[in-house]
């Protein structure tokens, strides 16, 4: 941990800090929505620390508040969180740490920490970015949720502030450099289309997993058929040394 400040350049650290700030604001709306739905403060507080996966927590609170069983809500939340399995596959070994530290390193695996980790060019920087973002989210998400639950009615109408647009915007901003690669972009668009087409019919979480079928576009197409245009930097396609 001591070398994070030397390992990561200032731009990456700023982006991580801003992402954590955005997570904090989304946490505010989560805490506020939870208490507005009739939950006591400890529910968003405990859940934000122990589950640490925003979308599934919103879903859990929404289903239980609507009268659904907490177990059905847990299953729906797990479906949403199943994407953490392919995330774990995508992270090179060593990024989440070793020994006992790995228990925490695994817990802080989320959309933001994975995308920052994978964006770095080598293992020390991948580890530093993953952990910095992961620990930042571990502080900001529950912090935002608790504060949001406390001020509750003050940010009751989170829609008016457009806070619900922040989560997709954060993720989009983080993957946009991978999308500069034409092949990755095509597969990502196909995946997004699959997920959108499936959303009306399937339970939450499943459409996103179904999007993985778009990986087939990358397998079947022989490499090198798509040269990046001038000014495009195919970051996702950059060859990394295998661990």
């Amino acid at each position: 941990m001591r070398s994070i400040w030397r390992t990561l350049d200032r731009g990456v650290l700023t982006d991580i800090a801003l992402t954590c700030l955005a997570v904090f604001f989304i946490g505010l709306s989560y805490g506020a929505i939870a208490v507005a739905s009739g939950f006591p403060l400890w529910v968003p507080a405990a859940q934000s620390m122990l589950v640490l996966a925003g979308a599934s927590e919103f879903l859990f609170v929404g289903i239980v508040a609507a009268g659904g069983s907490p177990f059905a809500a847990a299953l729906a939340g797990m479906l949403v969180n199943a994407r953490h399995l392919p995330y774990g596959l995508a992270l090179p070994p060593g990024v989440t740490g070793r020994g006992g530290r790995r228990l925490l390193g695994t817990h802080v695996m989320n959309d933001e920490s994975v995308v920052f980790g994978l964006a770095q060019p080598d293992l020390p920087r991948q580890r530093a970015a993953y952990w910095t973002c992961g620990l930042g989210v571990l502080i900001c998400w529950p912090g935002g949720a608790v504060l949001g639950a406390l001020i509750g009615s003050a940010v009751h109408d989170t829609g008016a502030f457009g806070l619900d647009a922040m989560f997709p915007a954060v993720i989009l901003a983080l993957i946009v450099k991978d999308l500069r690669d034409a092949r990755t972009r095509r597969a990502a668009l196909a995946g997004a289309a699959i997920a959108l087409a499936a959303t009306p019919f399937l339970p939450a979480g499943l459409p996103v997993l179904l999007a993985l079928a778009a990986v087939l576009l990358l397998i079947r197409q022989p490499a090198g058929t798509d040269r990046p245009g001038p000014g495009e930097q195919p970051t996702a396609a950059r060859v990394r040394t295998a661990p």
Partner: protein
Amino acid sequence: MNSTLVIAGMGTLAVGTYAFRVSGQLLRAKINFPPRATRLLEAAAVILLAALVATTALTEGHAFSGFARPAGVLVAGLLAWRKAPFLAVVLAAAAVTALLRLVGVS
């Protein structure tokens, strides 16, 4: 709302989510992936994230979310593509969505 049931549900979700996080890592450690497979796995993560962006921007439950949110996300995407600072991108998403709702576009 039954507290015991809610705690049990929360515990199930927490344990299940952790199990997903662990199992991907364990599989990765067991199998030695060639570089091409590694790149595919990374692309798979990007595809998952892109699908997450599309569904959270455009849908609410099983239906269309309305125009305000995807419009905000679209502006954010254009700014990000033009390499605008991260803060500007995220604030633009919230601001555009909030402004559209202010003028009555849901």
